[in-house]
């Protein structure tokens, strides 16, 4: 197994580097998920974002997601890099690469990875709006997540 398949970084993510981490002769497909910073959410304009992480545990939970995927789809190889710190609109926050012999498995495993990130990986997003700031998912009534996690479209 390659080192550093699951990483938290503070600088620009290279999509190609993450993709290359899962490239191998057995693979007939590599799916890439590239999560970017969106300007408008339900009409509200984001100026910039800050991600904060419990870094050591975040890497551990990303690795756990990799293990879960291995359990469900044994012929996959997964690499995930998440950026933290201050990000601007259109910057890449996360890249997930999954390779497998056939494409359907690679698509499914990739979607599973982002859903699990939103459930168990200790990374938080602070939105900087024109009229204030807010930790998403924090304890204030205005951003309460009824299910304890973000909506699917987040």
């Amino acid at each position: 197994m390659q080192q550093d398949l699951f990483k938290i970084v503070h600088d620009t993510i290279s999509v190609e580097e993450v993709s290359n981490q899962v490239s191998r002769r057995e693979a007939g497909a590599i799916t890439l998920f590239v999560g970017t910073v969106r300007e408008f959410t339900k009409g509200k304009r984001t100026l910039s974002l800050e991600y904060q992480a419990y870094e050591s545990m975040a890497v551990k939970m990303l690795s756990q997601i990799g293990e879960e995927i291995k359990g469900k789809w044994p012929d996959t190889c997964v690499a995930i890099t998440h950026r933290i710190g201050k990000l601007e609109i259109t910057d890449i926050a996360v890249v997930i690469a999954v390779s497998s012999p056939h494409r359907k498995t690679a698509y499914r495993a990739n979607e599973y990875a982002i859903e699990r990130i939103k459930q168990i990986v200790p990374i938080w997003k602070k939105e900087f709006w024109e009229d204030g700031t807010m930790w998403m998912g924090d304890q204030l009534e205005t951003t309460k997540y009824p299910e304890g996690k973000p909506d699917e479209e987040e």
Partner: protein
Amino acid sequence: MITVLFFAGIREEIGSDKLNIDMENITIYQLKQYLLNNYSLSSFNQVMTAINESFVTDDEIIKDQDIIAFIPPVSGG
């Protein structure tokens, strides 16, 4: 002595990213009550807790040297 880590909104309410507290052999629930009584916190509603980077429940007993992290709803990705 235990170390308690805070993140996101809770970090801003506590005013620090961590506290060293001279307590042990208490439950997570008791630690939460202690923090709620001593700091200006809105609540621990929806917060998950980890001891030494593994998620635990409120009944878990905290031992000397443990690192406890309070994890508000996450929003990575």
